[in-house]
């Protein structure tokens, strides 16, 4: 699980071009949107594509993203339970 969390942090930094943020600066429980990392709706789309492409998870309802993408912890938990690759 901790490996997956590290992988997610790396992917988020790389794919969302968070140039000034280091992996250590993202805590597992930090909110990804709003006052945390400050991600926005375009980032949410990027994360949905990432789930599909890298873990084989298709979100039928984009509103699910609201809870899944709450933090690194919630993302990792959801991926562990639903991944097909």
């Amino acid at each position: 699980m901790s490996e997956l969390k590290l992988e997610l942090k790396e992917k988020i930094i790389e794919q969302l071009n968070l140039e000034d943020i280091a992996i250590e600066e993202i805590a597992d429980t930090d909110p990804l949107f709003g006052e945390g990392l400050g991600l926005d709706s375009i980032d949410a789309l990027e994360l949905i594509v990432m789930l599909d492409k890298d873990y084989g998870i298709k979100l039928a309802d984009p509103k699910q993203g609201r809870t899944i993408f709450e933090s690194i912890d919630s993302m990792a938990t959801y991926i562990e339970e639903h991944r097909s690759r």
Partner: protein
Amino acid sequence: MSKSVYINSVGSVSVQKTFDNSEFLNEITTYNDTVASVVNPDYKAYIPPTQARRMAKGIKMSTVSSQTALQEAGLENVDAIIVGTGLGCIGDSVKFVRDIIDNDEQFLTPTRFIQSSHNTVSGQIALGISCKGYNFTYVHAAVSFESCLIDAKMQLENDEAKNILVGGVDEMVKYHVDTHRLIGHIKSEPADSTRLLTVNTKGSVMGEGAHFFVLSNEKQESTYAELVAIETYNSIAQENIPNKIEAFLEENHMTIEDLDLVILGNNGDVDFDGYYENLSTGLFKDRPQAYYKHLSTEFDTASGFAFWLSAKILKTQTIPEVVKLNEIEVSNPRTILIYNQYRGENHSLMLLRKC
């Protein structure tokens, strides 16, 4: 009667350190290469990190350049934004197309799509200053920037707008360099920028840049010069160029003798510099001459650098030694003609006057 058009401010990010308007080619960046990148300003000083992370290099360069121009003109908004670009944000266009191929048309992400269109720059600038006015992007190869000027000039002359932000931008990315090297448009051997016109090889040194200007039909304290006339020609036989130039000047009630400086677009390509050399030794042989592509490098909107150079010369009344092409001196330059072409096509004439 149509109104006059003034260049009220300038902004530039180029291969030279031009982003600081308080300087005028005080330090020259030389290179010995086949390509050259811009001298990067501190983008973080101009763009919040949350916005910068989705910006391609061309957008970052344009944001700095346009902000500089708006600030110098004392404006927070304009009536219109008109941008010229040969290739737009080609870096993200390449990534987007590569994603389509690599992922079998699946998993396409929004950021690269948003930035893969040519009009991303004008759109981003408009979003940044909340400009809801006319927003247009011209994509006409080596006359992209000039096309913007024509549009802006007509609107200002007819008093359809008062202040227009006009700019030209092109970014350099690996794919573009690789393809242009393959077809021989980039030099195969490094060229020393201090002797670019004597290297005697084919192709040019490829680069990038963003040049923005506020054009207005009202003169103000910051005004650099008046944009008197501009003309573009897709193709002209080399032997007809002198006639075209004389006709252009005649339309503006001028002759060759009225030109205090001629700025030419020689880029050191042995196959195409003849267009300029014929003029240097013929029509313009008695006029002071300057060149600029050893400073700007070559790209579709490189003539924006010449426009910036001309505006600076007319405002400061100084012609930097590094741009002089011949030894004919001029003490108080009042009228400048810029002539540019790329690979024998897309010729342009721009006439500027001190005011």
